[in-house]
Every structure is written in structure tokens, then in C-alpha cells.
């Protein structure tokens, strides 16, 4: 007979397998650094594992994990600011490199070029967003989360989430419109 601890471990393994890609993707989009995103993803699941017993299921496991990931990412940037004079190097890839990943499929070369340009402009807009706006924007338009989920994960009200999204979208629109 499986003990409670063993059952919990099995359950947690399923959670990791199911949600790891999304958490990693969100952290990758936030940091543009593959190694850092992997490290933060590991930390996220480590933290989740330690606190798994305290997870009450008020929100979905995904929202709970996303909340941990957002906090880790915030801590990371805060520490980076503190360590500015000690370590200024960043491993984030530049926007050109990030825009290299394009939808291909049946698209023509011209369409691909256009898509690449659009993706680069969106990356530029995202780079200019505040930390909170960027988080909300990525959760909505990359992870396709509902506003209520974003509100739970960020600890903001839905109204505030909408306001951040509106500003972020305005920036993207300006970037796309201004350089077209």
C-alpha cells in the first residue's frame, strides 16, 4: 500500500511533467536566457515540492506554479540590480536571435521575412515594458491565460491586469505602427 508521502511524490511528478514546458516558456520569454530559464524552472519546482503539502488547491496547480515562477523572476531581477557593480554581464540573447524562431510551415520566404520583422518589433516592445506589464503581457499573449488566472498568479486585481494589458498592447501597437 502506498503511503501518503509516496502518493504525494507521484502526484508531484505528474504536475512537473504536465506544467514544466509552460513554466519554462514563460521564464524564457521573461529572461531571454535559456540557461537562466532552466535554472529558475528547477528552482520553481524545488520550491513547489517543498511547499506541496501546503498547496490547498484554491487555484489550479498551474496558477500556483506560475505565481512561484513570477516571484522567482522578480527576486532574480532584484538581485541583479543589487549586484550591478559586481556582475554586469547578461546572458540574455539579443532580440535578433530571439526573433530567429519563426513559424515556417507552408509560408513563403516573403511571409517569413515579414513575420520575422513583426516578431522582432514585438520583442522590442516587450523589452520596453515594465516588469509587471511584461509579466501580464506574456501570460496573456504567450501563455494564453485567462484574466482571472493572471490576476491570481500576479496577485493583482482583474482591473489592474486589464490596465497593464492595455498599456502593453498600446506599446506593441505603436511599435508596429510606427515602424511600418
Amino acid at each position, binding site marked *: 500500500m502506498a503511503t501518503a508521502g509516496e502518493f504525494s511524490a507521484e502526484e508531484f511528478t505528474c504536475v512537473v511533467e504536465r506544467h514544466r*514546458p509552460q513554466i519554462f516558456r514563460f521564464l524564457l520569454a521573461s529572461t531571454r536566457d535559456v540557461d537562466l530559464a532552466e535554472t529558475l524552472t528547477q528552482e520553481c519546482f524545488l520550491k513547489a515540492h517543498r511547499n506541496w503539502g501546503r498547496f490547498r488547491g484554491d487555484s489550479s496547480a498551474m496558477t500556483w506554479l506560475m505565481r512561484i515562477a513570477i516571484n522567482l523572476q522578480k527576486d532574480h531581477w532584484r538581485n541583479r540590480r543589487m549586484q550591478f557593480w559586481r556582475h554586469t554581464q547578461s546572458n540574455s540573447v539579443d532580440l535578433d536571435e530571439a526573433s530567429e*524562431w*519563426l*513559424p515556417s*510551415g507552408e509560408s513563403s520566404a516573403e511571409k517569413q521575412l515579414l513575420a520575422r520583422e513583426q516578431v522582432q518589433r514585438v520583442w522590442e516592445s516587450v523589452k520596453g515594458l515594465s516588469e509587471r506589464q511584461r509579466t501580464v503581457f506574456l501570460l496573456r499573449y*504567450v501563455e494564453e491565460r485567462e484574466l482571472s488566472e493572471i490576476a491570481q498568479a500576479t496577485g493583482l486585481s482583474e482591473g489592474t491586469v486589464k490596465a497593464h494589458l492595455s498599456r502593453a498592447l498600446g506599446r506593441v501597437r505603436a511599435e508596429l505602427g510606427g515602424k511600418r
Partner: protein
Amino acid sequence: MSGMERLAGKREEVEGAAELDAGEPVDAALEEALTNFRMSVHAWSDAALSRPRTAAQVVRHRSWRLAVGWALAAVLMVGGLSGGMFERHQRIERERIAAAARLAEQQKAIREQQAMDENDLLAAVDSDVSREVPNAMEPLAQLGAEGAK
């Protein structure tokens, strides 16, 4: 580019779900840009997740470390020995200087003692000679004194 094939099928699904927020008028270009951005991030993430990971083998040069260890031990031993010898030499030197100083001090004290003894003897003789004049010589001494007047 890996992960791109999967995107072709995923595109329709994502495009269908590209519902932007209520109250935000969204033009086709913005919607298309956001869809491309989403798919680009998904492709990048999928490729990064499925990339092969190489574990670097850490080669430990044990013999080199052993040699360094022995050399360090030898240096420490030689340092300790020479330090001890130097310390011993210094101690002997200090003792020799202290003994010489003590001897000089003793000799000085002896010389002072001798000088004091001689002075006392001379003073005693002088006192004896000058103060105790024999009675028989007293008139002659008075005469000498009057003559001097």
C-alpha cells in the same frame, strides 16, 4: 530549425484562440504580429527544452595534485625547521648578550665598591692626622698661629 514542423499544425489552434481583451480594438496586423510572436516563443521554448544536454567530465589530475601536496608539505617543513633554527639562534644570542650585561654590571659594582673603600680609608687617615694633634705639640701650634698674625 527544430520545432518548426510542430508549429504548422499548432498555428490554426493558436490563431483560433487569439482572442484579445474586451474593449481593445485589434486590427489584423496586430493580431497577426501577436500570433507570430506567440508561435515564435513556443518554437524557441520547445527547441530549448528538447536540446541535447552534454555533461562535462571533470578530469581530476590526481598525480599533479599529489606532487603539489608534497611540494607544499616540503616547503612547510623547511620553513618550520629554518624558523625554529632561527628562533633558537636568536634565543642563544639574547642569552649571551644578557650574560655579558650581567657580568659588566657586576664588575662595575665591584669597582664602585673598591673605590668607596679606598675613599673611606683615605678620609679616615686624613681625619686621624689632621684632628688629633698630640698635646706636646700644642704650644708649637699656637706659636705658628701667632706668627702668622
